[in-house]
């Protein structure tokens, strides 16, 4: 392990002493194994295919300190509405990775539904979580996921009992407020969330990540969603960290028979972000939908690796990611679809479209199909291009300025993704963010 990589780990001993033996034995052992993994294998380099386009030297150069829970940190409900939107349902707020009961509002939920912090879940029913928490930690696990396993102390815990339907979205808000954190300086938080959707249940989960001040910090999040037979989960992730922050995240999904999972990722913030989605289709008849929008500008680097693993037969996957790259930004899409032996009647399609808006913008796309079964229907497509200048010209002949015309068309390109957001207040919130982004990008967005 190089000296640089030690900086990410140096705060760990302090974290350990802080815990002061509160962890159950299994969790201690688990953290120990995870940490060992990090030390042995080290952090990914450009030689790792999965990290080819995202170099993390900039992260490793920073001497991060682990964040701490601080009950004195408070934000008004209006401030949170502004940062994350008001979606009407239950809202769990985490500051620097730790649950803030004062800032959260837990509405009355149906009988048996559990929505709480992972810390309290660990305290109350720790033993039952052992198998669950260690699950996404397999052979392929990279250093950041392992680091999360070693360090995570809090996050959201959501459990929906069988055949229970929750109409209003459950909103998980992760705010970074490094300015107020102790000790002062760059902090790293490791939120770990768990969503368990029981058989036949239905729920919508929204994760929002946002920063408050333009300081350097790292969010290293892992969210796990498990859908039991016949469950349906709609998931949204809005990544709107500050443009000085680093954001590394994994969304790991396990789908059993006849489940429906859809995720919509909107990546707007961070200097460097890598939001990975891995979906395992373990039961026949499952359907996974992955949608994503990423809009790097200035010096931003936004990477979107996804893996859809067709293990069981007769599953469907649909994927659509769109990138709009401006400034000196770089957008990366790296999508894998794997069809395992025996996963017959797999039906998969994957599309990635990119729009380059500036001279120095750069897009990488790598849609990959790995097929080990014969009775399948798989297709993928990728495009990189620019606005259709003929259409821009047409609009100009109708009296619309060039800037406005370009904005209009960019917004139309993005609009398809926004329309897929079914939670109305969330869609309005994201539309506002995107409109703001396009106008800030120097092209002067017409009001959306």
């Amino acid at each position, binding site marked *: 392990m190089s000296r640089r990589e030690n900086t990410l780990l140096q705060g760990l001993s302090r974290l350990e002493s802080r815990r002061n033996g509160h962890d159950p034995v299994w969790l201690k052992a688990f953290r120990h194994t995870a940490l060992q993994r990090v030390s042995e294998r080290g952090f990914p380099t450009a030689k790792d*295919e999965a990290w080819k386009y995202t170099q993390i030297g900039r992260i490793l150069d920073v001497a991060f300190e682990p964040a701490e829970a601080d009950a004195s940190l408070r934000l008004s409900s209006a401030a949170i509405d502004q940062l994350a939107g008001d979606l009407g349902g239950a809202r769990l707020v985490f500051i620097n990775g730790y649950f803030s009961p004062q800032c959260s509002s837990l509405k009355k939920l149906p009988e048996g539904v559990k929505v709480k912090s992972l810390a309290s879940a660990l305290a109350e029913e720790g033993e039952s979580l052992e198998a669950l928490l260690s699950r996404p930690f397999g052979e392929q696990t990279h250093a950041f996921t392992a680091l999360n396993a070693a360090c995570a102390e809090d996050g959201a815990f959501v459990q929906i009992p069988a055949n229970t339907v929750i109409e209003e979205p459950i909103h998980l808000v992760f705010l970074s407020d490094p300015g107020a954190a102790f000790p002062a300086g760059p902090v790293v938080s490791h939120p770990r969330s768990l969503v368990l959707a029981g058989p036949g249940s239905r729920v919508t989960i929204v994760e929002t990540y946002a920063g408050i001040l333009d300081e350097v910090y790292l969010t290293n999040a892992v969210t796990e969603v498990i859908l039991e037979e016949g469950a349906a989960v709609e998931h949204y992730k809005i990544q709107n960290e500050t443009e000085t922050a680093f954001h590394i995240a994994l969304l790991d999904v396990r789908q059993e028979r006849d489940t429906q999972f859809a995720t919509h990722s909107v990546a707007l913030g961070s200097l460097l972000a890598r939001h990975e989605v891995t979906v395992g289709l373990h039961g026949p008849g499952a359907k996974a939908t992955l949608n994503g929008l990423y809009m790097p500008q200035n010096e931003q680097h936004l990477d979107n690796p996804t893996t859809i693993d067709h293990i069981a037969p007769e599953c469907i996957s649909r994927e659509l990611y769109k990138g709009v790259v401006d400034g000196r930004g770089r957008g990366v899409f790296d999508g894998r679809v794997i069809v395992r*032996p025996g996963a*017959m009647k797999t039906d998969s399609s994957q599309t990635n479209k*990119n729009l*380059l*808006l*500036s*001279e*120095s*913008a*750069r*897009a*990488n*796309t*790598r*849609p*990959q*199909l*790995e*097929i*080990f*079964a*014969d*009775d*399948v*229907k*798989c*297709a*993928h*497509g*990728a*495009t*990189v*291009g*620019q606005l259709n200048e003929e259409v821009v010209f047409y609009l100009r002949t109708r009296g619309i300025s060039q800037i406005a015309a370009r904005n209009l068309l960019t917004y139309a390109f993005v609009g398809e993704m926004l329309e897929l957001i079914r939670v109305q207040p969330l869609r309005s919130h994201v539309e506002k963010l995107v409109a703001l982004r396009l106008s800030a990008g120097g092209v002067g967005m017409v009001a959306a």
Partner: protein
Amino acid sequence: MSAVQKELSELTSREYQYGFVTDIETDAAPRGLNEDVIRLISSKKNEPQWLLDWRLRAYRHWLTIKEPHWQNAHYGPIDYQDIIYYAAPKPKTAGPKSLDEVDPEILAMFNKLGISLGEQERLSGIAVDAIVDSVSVGTTFKKKLAEVGVIFCSFSEAVLDHPDLVKKYLGSVVPYTDNYFATLNSAVFTDGSFCFIPKGVRCPMELSTYFRINQADTGQFERTLIIAEDNAYVSYLEGCTAPMRDKNQLHAAVVELVALESAQIKYSTVQNWYPGDKDGKGGIYNFVTKRGKCAGANSKISWTQVETGSAITWKYPSVILKGDNSVGEFYSVALTNNRQQADTGTKMIHIGKNTRSTILSKGISAGHGQNTYRGLVKILKSAAGARNHTQCDSLLLGSQCGAHTFPYIDVGNPTAQVEHEASTSKISEDQLFYCRQRGIPVEDAASMIVNGFCREVFKELPMEFAVEAQKLLSVSLEGSVG
């Protein structure tokens, strides 16, 4: 359903037709690789000192690098000290060889392969350079081509007769440091073809090289260099076969193409090296570096390949689009049956303005075959107005095979337009049934459907090759589906 499967599986198990060995007296270097072997190869060919030095530089570099294993292929370690790096049929008569002096055994061997070295024969529109193991045994139509200024000869002859051209272009597209196998080739390459089409000349006939590995335990390391000067045009064909042997044999060739202003090079390959038996024993490791450079404005390089042979194929015929408005094309059919593995595709590097590239790849997997398309489309910042269109289709003919698509797209210019499309599906039961209802048996129907699937690529091949390719595909498919 099962009846169809069974019949299809019978279809895909016919034997390799070119697996015979010809008894030719051979002059070979001792097994293994060291500087002495390289000096021996160089001295056998009476090479100038600069070329020996170049070989030795490559060899010393090779010693410092490791064999790559990132490709989607699995094979045991290659013992580079157990390979014979030079094997040449012994000439029966001394002195300079002419076509009339070619050993009748060798002529007979080529006849058996369907390649005529007689200038009056069937392929009279095609000039052939015939290469057996490490050396060229004869080149047809040399005189006729020389009349229009076209140089077509073996690489060894070119080194002696046209040293300035060789020195100027050798390694200019694929430097000796390029990659492990290209570096090895640079150290030990034995022969290959050399083509030079001078300014303004449209080569009056197709040029072709036929490669034949005959000797056991030899590696084949040929090197081909084609140069088309301003406004020149050439169409070049390459074919290859090898005997059936239990041991794997290494073929690590390098092909360099240079197209100057408004020149066009069309390079077609029908690769049918011995693929190994149905259990994956034996066969050729085909690790080849092929690259063309559109050095001049408005130039065009087009690769067409039909890959049906080899145990493992690992090649990415590429085009560096340096000249403004230059065009790169890659058309490929790759079929893997039994235990064959293919990891093939292309790289299109767009540097010049308004450069265009087209990639059309058709992969067919049968038996336990693993077929991978891997391609890079890179648009540099300088390549304003660049265009690429890529289409990769895969057809699966068995439940044990695999088809994989790994495109890499890197776009650094906002005026570029890049499109990639891919699809994978199994051979359609409905299509098969429709054909059978018209009285066409399953094997014929499958072969017809697969040929239809490949048609867009076949139509890029010169006529004679297209017919060959279709036949080859049907043969290679036999016994594959099940």
